[in-house]
């Protein structure tokens, strides 16, 4: 118990801190590094929760595979120099922070009101996890959840096809301004991608 407690209170602040550092970091590669730290600490939290398989998978897939893709893309695009980020909508950042805090508060409230902050494993967890966590996972995944498992393979297939189709594009991107000139200008729409964040829902 005590070990759980110590590990949790070491990892949780690091994880949150690295997540915040990632957001504040202007340099894309540094941000990616903070994300890796974050993924790592989350993996350790999985371990604390008694899911060693998930711990390993988190490191292998997220920290190992997906972050390599991130770094590749960062290098590929050469987004190396520190980007000058101009906010088009005033108050967007404040609104985003407020709404984000709102979500956090809501979740904390919902959990607190409902189960309370649990200090022990849920009932039956030990039994379900019996014979080793990977084995238990295998039993569930390949019996009760075999249909989602098979559906995952279709998802993977579509993902592979998607990667190929999107990467095969062989044309030079036209400058955005050029493109805008060709299209009718709409008076009512700012039509910028940054817009939706403002309405980030509280849920």
């Amino acid at each position, binding site marked *: 118990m005590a070990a759980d407690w110590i590990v949790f209170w070491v990892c949780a602040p690091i994880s949150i801190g690295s997540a915040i550092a990632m957001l504040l970091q202007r340099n894309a590669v540094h941000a990616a590094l903070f994300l890796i730290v974050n993924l790592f600490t989350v993996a350790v939290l999985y371990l604390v929760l008694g899911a060693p398989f998930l711990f*390993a998978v988190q490191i292998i897939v997220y920290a190992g595979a997906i972050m390599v893709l991130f770094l590749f893309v960062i290098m590929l695009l050469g987004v190396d120099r520190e980007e000058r980020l101009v906010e088009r909508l005033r108050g967007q950042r404040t609104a985003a922070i407020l709404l984000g805090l709102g979500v956090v508060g809501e979740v904390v409230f919902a959990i607190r009101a409902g189960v309370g902050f649990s200090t022990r494993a849920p009932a039956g967890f030990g039994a379900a996890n019996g014979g080793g966590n990977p084995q238990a996972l295998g039993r569930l995944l390949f019996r009760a959840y075999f249909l989602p498992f098979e559906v995952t393979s279709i998802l993977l297939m579509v993902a592979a096809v998607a990667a190929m189709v999107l990467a095969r594009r062989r044309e030079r991107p036209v400058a955005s301004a050029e493109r805008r000139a060709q299209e009718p200008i709409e008076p009512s729409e700012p039509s910028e991608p940054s817009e939706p964040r403002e309405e980030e829902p509280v849920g």
Partner: protein
Amino acid sequence: MDWLDWLLLAARVVVVFFVLLLSVILLVWVERKVVADMQTRKGPMRAGPRGVLVSLADGIKLFFKEGITPALADRPVYLIAPIVSMLPAFLAFAVIPFGTGVTLFGRRVPFQIADLNVGILWVLAMSSMMVYGIVLAGWSSGSNYPLLGSIRSSAQMISYEVGMALALVSVLMYSGHLRMTQIVAAQDRVWNVVPQLPAFVIYLIAGLAETNRPPFDLPEAETELVAGYHTEYSGIKFAMFYLAEYLNTVTVAAIATTLFLGGWRGPHPEHLAWLWPILWFVVKVLAIIYAYIWIRATLPRFRYDRLMAFGWKVLIPFGLVWVLATGAVIVLPDVYGRRPVVIGAAAVLAVVLLLSLLWSALARRRETVEAPS
């Protein structure tokens, strides 16, 4: 846990750590000697008897060399990259049982740092972490050659990681457990290398590529990339990359020993029962390392496109088919009885071999067709 437990734990970790360091120092010498021998040279002779201290001398020299941080480097990342590349090399070794254990002061001291219940996955996780040292080193150097080298080598490493994982899976199907000690325990009668020879070969090849050893040392292809990802590194930081590379070799060989060659198992007398397993383990690891050195001395470096093609077009499909074939050979007897299954397995095996031959032939032909364009 009382103070004695802590002490034993600390002692175990410290001993393993320094033995690993020492093994690297020896390994560098062994490699140079063996390669020299194969090329009828003498190799290093000056430092120490028969030059055994040559790598120590190298290390000391690098330690006192001026460390240059290039002007265009990204300083923090440039600094942590060598550490990041070294850590996983040590940590991957942590799950390997290199002996049975010994009883000291009435307490059992296992010859293994940590017997994790996700042992194999830990190895895989650490080997996927090795990419970072290289990627970060290449990027942070602020220079073209390291960047090219690091992108290349990380692409190479992730390509062979899948093949490596597939080899591990087929071992798992025999042991039925991810824990390293139980994988060794499952090999009490037959070493996994016998039923799983193809997986062993896949693992060795993937291991070569993961550790960037010749003939897969593309990241350091000096004729085109100067020295690859560590071109801009010097002094102690360079030494760390060097250390990491050789540590990885040791680790890969140790994993191969544990998974395929029965780990520390071997016939031994009752006398000094704790020592013999360690010796067996060391001998097996050395044998694999010798094979690696031999390969280095024999084969020229791969061309990059062939390297990638080999990983993706041969190793992965072959590994996948092998996993399924292993599954069929183990599961089907339980359902249909042995005899028909043995025949079926032979047929499957034949088909697999045929397919793999076809595959490589196919890949080669496509290459020759497309090369002129």
